[in-house]
């Protein structure tokens, strides 16, 4: 489903070139619950950004569902993200002026769906992530865990085949982090959505069905757990 072939990404800091990814090759199949792990600066987020079509690679090729994304133009990438990918961020990144319901519905409004369908799908997903009755709360009136649940609902509501989560539990305490991972796992199994998440937390790695370790921009191990 996702093919990452010899991908290279360099960053330029003044005259210094930082090699974030040095020829990463990886294949991910549908429905995987895969963790990209490694220490800070190992290239986890860079790899996630490249798969998520929000960054440009310097070499190699990535294809998702047989579409080569590395050669796509900006607008094509935007459309691709809108239709195929869901994102969960470390700091939730909810729109503070919108309620939980509106934050989720926002993604569907980008797909120009009828209002009735937007409402039904939004309410259903919020119920699924355990936020029934909190639809009208703004992020400031939700706990960190609840905010991340809204973010998960926002990522799932358009039924994407792939969800990318960059350190989704890093801002949460361990109990809440565990709850969030349980929820992600549940959604992965229920919807057969491919979850790719980055982490450097041992507890989070334990939840993954496949653990890809990165070190200095290269894959140091690729282990299937179950």
């Amino acid at each position, binding site marked *: 489903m996702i093919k990452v072939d010899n991908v290279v990404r360099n960053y330029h800091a003044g005259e210094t070139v930082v090699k974030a990814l040095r020829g990463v090759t990886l294949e991910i199949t549908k429905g995987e619950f895969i963790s990209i792990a490694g220490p800070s600066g190992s290239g986890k*987020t860079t790899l996630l*950004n490249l798969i*998520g079509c*929000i*960054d*440009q690679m310097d070499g190699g090729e990535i294809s998702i569902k047989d579409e080569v994304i590395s050669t796509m133009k900006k*607008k094509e990438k*935007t*459309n*691709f*993200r*809108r*239709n195929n*990918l869901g*994102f969960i*961020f470390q*700091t939730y*990144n909810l*729109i*503070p*002026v*919108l309620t939980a319901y*509106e934050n989720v*519905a*926002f*993604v569907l*409004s*980008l797909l120009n769906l009828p209002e009735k369908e937007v409402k039904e799908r939004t309410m259903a997903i919020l119920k699924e992530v355990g936020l029934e009755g909190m639809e009208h709360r703004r992020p400031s009136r939700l706990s960190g865990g609840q905010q991340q649940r809204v973010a998960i609902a*926002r990522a799932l509501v358009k039924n994407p085949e792939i969800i990318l989560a960059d350190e989704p539990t890093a801002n949460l305490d361990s109990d809440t982090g565990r709850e969030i991972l349980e929820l992600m796992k549940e959604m992965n199994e229920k919807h057969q959505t491919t979850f790719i998440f980055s982490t450097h937390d041992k507890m989070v790695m334990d939840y993954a069905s496949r653990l890809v370790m990165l070190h200095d921009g290269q894959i140091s191990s690729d282990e299937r757990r179950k």
Partner: protein
Amino acid sequence: MKFLISLAFKNLTRYKRRTLITAGAIAVGLMMYIFIDSMLMGAEIESVRNLKWFETASARILNDEYWENRFQKPMDLNISSPDKIIKTLDDNGITATKRMVFSGDLILNAEDFGEDGNLAATVTAIDPTRDFDVFNFGTTLVDGRFLEPGEDAVLLGSWFAEDIGAEVGYWITVVTRGNGGFYEAMDLEIVGILNCPNPNVNRQLLMMPISTADEYLAMEGAVTEINVSLPENADVNMEVERIQGMLNGDNLTVMSWEAMAVDYLALAEAKRGGTSMILFLIFIIAAVGISNTMLMAIFERIKELGMMRSLGMSNTKIRLAFMFEAAGIGVIGSVMGVVLGIFADMFIVNIGIDYGFLLRDMDIGYRLQAIFRGVWNPGTMVKAFFMGIIISIVVAYLPTKRALKMDIPSCLRHQ
């Protein structure tokens, strides 16, 4: 689209302080624009009125060659039968009055003025029985009385009287040359002081009865000009042509007030250009303020912007969301600006600003003596309202464009 509008509205209420500060900057700019426009438009309208009421009348009949030589004030380039012309005009429903303008030396004696002296002066001889039908001196008397036909008397403008230290009851002597070139000295009593709202007139006004001047200067009924009053809504140029037709080619010409005040009109036009520049600068200042706050508003939401872009929101829609927000600020600022402008206009229209201290000794071109009063101009208010919105949108466009140039990972990392 509905979502974008709702998001923009919610963001306006999210940053209440910023919204109010930016809207306030727009409001102050628009208020200034409305206020200055009202004041200058009022000054122009009043100047034109004062010009016609005290200086040029609506139109003037002159000897064909007089206008070219007007600075010499030639007595021989005159109208020989003014009463016949005035009668013809009267028969056609047009009010007119004759005047004789000549230059002379004004001699001041020590007995009245404390010391002897003399200065050049322009004397306007008027027909006291008709002059106030054409000109508006009727309400300007501040001391003494008006002129009577045939008396050896003068009226002075209040600033002129002040400058020479004249008071009612003082005597002056005017030395001039009569028709044919002989010298004549006229002893005249100051019987009244007029405070004319037209500063150009008030600075040098010296009026005497035309019958007295006629006798002293042997004009035999001839005058240098006939001034015509036309209704406010009359087409002056058409009326000028009509009057010209009544003169039967007597070597006379009719000039409209616009033709006589060509210098003033050119000056007013130049002032309008200058005013537009001032107004443009006011808008630039407001625009810089708005741009700055919009820039801050956009940059503090870079992360949010990155999130929206990663979720697949197009740059066009993001730009549109910020444009709606800016338009919202523009609407609030414009409403506030127009309301403030109405209050400012209420002051300038009803009370005005007294620039007497400035205009007393300085000629700025406007025919206003002291108080600048504004006029209501709904057109400017409507224009200001829409300009406020358009400027807000335009100045929000550039920072949004700049922010959208950042790559998405940088946006998401932004703190």
